[in-house]
């Protein structure tokens, strides 16, 4: 989380926190665990009114940001989403909105309008350039003035709630992205079980789904750069979100260490435990630092953006989970129960680690970049 917020960012953060505390407190999220969307009606549109959906969208398209760095602004929302274990399709909708804002086309802009207002949610799939061992599973081919989509994608966040799907698939000419309404015939959505009880994931199956050839996002067969960009945006948001969840889990556990007594002393008085808190604090501060650095770099399209994104995903993925599990350990038995709130954050951090590249995937990318540079030198 940024050390210094502008007055605008501060206010925005504040209103976001108030909305989350009001509409999605943990007590409410507990009740919504089995709800298909995971949030109450009106929650998402209220967030959209605050600006959650518009930060990555140009003013010409009806969006706008606070600081000139829309992704940095949005990372504040993502951080608060993590800190509150908030529900809703923040990551996917943001990725799709930013993609639609970068491209022209009447259908795209119409969809963008619905997304901005919160009337529609969107999800994206097949954007896994960081998982070379899991090849793309969707094919797109041209048939006259139509495109035909076949294949399966999973996990897709919020596919059940979304009205629009941004599909990344392989065409003979190269990676291609198309936007399709979920209502198109031939699309089947099957909910998946997930570690996180506040977010929803599904498998999406395309069987000869036909969309008009005007639905491209970017060029037919030429979506590689766009896809890479989208993946960076998603990774930045997931990293910020995980840092927020780490912060919440840590704060909760520090408080517990003061309140819980053993052998007539608070847990916080045992050096063996104090040192573990100190280690966690260093992981947490390091995670803040790399998450903010990645957001700023991607927002500015900096030369080191790809490296910082991978460092953030690799580090936060690994140490976020270590921190959360250590918090569980320091809670003792209550830590592995659903009664305590800690599990919301453990779940969030753990699932985020698996999305858009695991720490191992990102270490491979960092090595590719480091070795590539070495060979070039």
């Amino acid at each position, binding site marked *: 989380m940024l050390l210094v917020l502008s007055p605008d960012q501060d206010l925005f953060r504040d209103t976001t926190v108030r909305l989350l505390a009001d509409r999605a407190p943990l007590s409410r999220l507990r009740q919504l665990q089995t709800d298909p969307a995971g949030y109450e009606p009106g929650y998402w549109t209220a967030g959209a009114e605050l600006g959650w959906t518009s930060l990555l969208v140009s003013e010409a398209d009806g969006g706008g940001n606070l600081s000139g760095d829309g992704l940095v602004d949005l990372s504040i929302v993502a951080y608060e989403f993590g800190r509150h274990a908030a529900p809703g399709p923040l990551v996917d909708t943001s990725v799709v909105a930013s993609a639609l804002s970068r491209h022209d086309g009447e259908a795209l802009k119409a969809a963008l309008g619905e997304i901005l207002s919160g009337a529609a949610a969107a999800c994206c799939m097949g954007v896994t350039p960081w998982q070379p061992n899991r090849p793309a599973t969707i094919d797109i081919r041209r048939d006259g003035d139509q495109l035909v989509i076949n294949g399966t994608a999973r996990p897709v966040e919020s596919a059940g709630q979304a009205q629009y799907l941004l599909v990344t698939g392989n065409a003979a000419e190269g990676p291609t992205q198309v936007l399709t309404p979920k209502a198109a015939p031939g699309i089947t959505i099957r909910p998946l079980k997930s570690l996180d009880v506040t977010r929803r994931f599904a498998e999406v199956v395309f069987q000869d789904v036909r969309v008009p050839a005007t639905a491209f996002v970017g060029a037919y067969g030429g979506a590689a750069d766009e896809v890479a960009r989208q993946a960076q945006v998603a990774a930045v948001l997931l990293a910020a979100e995980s840092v927020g969840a780490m912060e919440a889990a840590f704060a909760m556990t520090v408080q517990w260490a003061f309140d819980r007594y053993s052998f007539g002393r608070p847990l916080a008085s045992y050096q063996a435990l*104090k040192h573990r808190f100190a280690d966690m604090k260093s992981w947490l501060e390091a995670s803040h630092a790399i998450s*903010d650095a990645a957001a700023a770099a991607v927002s500015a399209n900096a030369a080191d953006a790809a490296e910082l994104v*991978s460092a953030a995903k690799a580090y936060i993925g690994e140490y976020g989970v270590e921190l959360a599990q250590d918090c569980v350990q320091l809670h003792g038995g209550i830590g592995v129960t659903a009664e305590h709130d800690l599990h919301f954050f453990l779940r969030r951090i753990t699932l985020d680690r698996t999305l858009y590249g695991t720490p191992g995937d990102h270490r*491979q990318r960092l090595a590719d970049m480091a070795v590539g540079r070495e060979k070039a030198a």
Partner: protein
Amino acid sequence: MSAEMNEPIEDVEAFRLRARAWIGENMGPPQRGDLVRYYPDDAEELAAVTRDRGLQRRLYDGGFAGICFPRAYGGLGLTPAHQRAFNEELAGREFPSRLTVPTFTPCAAVLLDFGTEEQKLRHIPAILRGDEIWCQLLSEPGGGSDVAGATTSAVQDGDHWVINGSKVWTSGAWWGDYALCLARTNWHVSKHQGLTVFIVKLHQPGLEIGRIERLDGSTESCQEFLTDVRVPDSDRVGDVNEGWVVGTRWMFHERVGHNSPLVTMAAGAFRGGSGEPYVVRIAREGGQLDDPRTRDLIGEARTLDLVGRHLLRRLALGVPSGKLSEHSPAVGRLFGGIAAVRQSTIAFEIAGGAAGTWAEDDGATADVGMRFLMRQAACMGGGTTEISRNVIAERMLGMPREPSMDRNVAFRDVPRGPRQTATTEA
């Protein structure tokens, strides 16, 4: 002073461009002695020290020494942003690596905080010119973590002080010029109440300097024996028996270490080297660049590098602005120690069988084994990582202090281990 305040400060980017041009013409590539601290003989080590002094002089003559030091003492009076720009421009170049720590910080930093006007005028410009190398006489044979438990004694004799005792682990004392020395001036009050800090000339009668051989063969570490060393009262830093006021800031500056805005160093070039391209070089030399396990380790080393760099930036921004606790440098120290240890292990792992035995001309791989043996030094020098953890838990998180046997007791009555030879004064 008023002239300094009225003049507009040079724009950082303009400064950067000026620095870039100057560095391009004046600072060459790093040499072996800049990265490795092991020397087969003293003559070679002294030559490296002389070279560092010359590099500092070059910075001074070029108008780039002491970027954040006040102009009254020969500095440029600019901001941490200027220093960072300069360090970034210096990336991949030679720089006076032996002067960064402890000369510029914590020593010069402590002088700026507590020195008298006369002390600052005498020493700061000399430091900026490369004429003075400073050391820290802090740790003692009886213990280094409990810094305030110093038993080296100083007794007043007219307008002088007479110092007796021993200090140890002093990096570079045998080729250094001056040191800050923490000594006990009152044994009848509690530990923190009876300390005083002095400036001590390292080469003088009564101050014997021994050498300690480290695991890697380096003899940079020294042990000093002080016998009736006389120091004028004008070389006292801070008030008598107020040494812990100075000591607290001293420890702070020490934990900030290379991240201090007072330090000029090539960005990314930490003395012993960083995780990259060092680990990449080790992998290439061993023909392991395409091995998937090696790639994972390279990625991990690279992650720690990038995260460490941005953590230090966050601390450098957050501490002065008050957004982060003043004790936060302990977080950077802890992270840095643990990351360095892991990176040593990674290099050792990548080098595999080549790390245990080597020939001098084996390239970067020749150093890997020794660095691994010396691995834990990164978690000791500058205060151990355990002490950093205490600081984080107790000062930042507000957890209860450890029980101790030395509070509210006259220091002479504090229990001491057998190795602590207190030269108790009446």
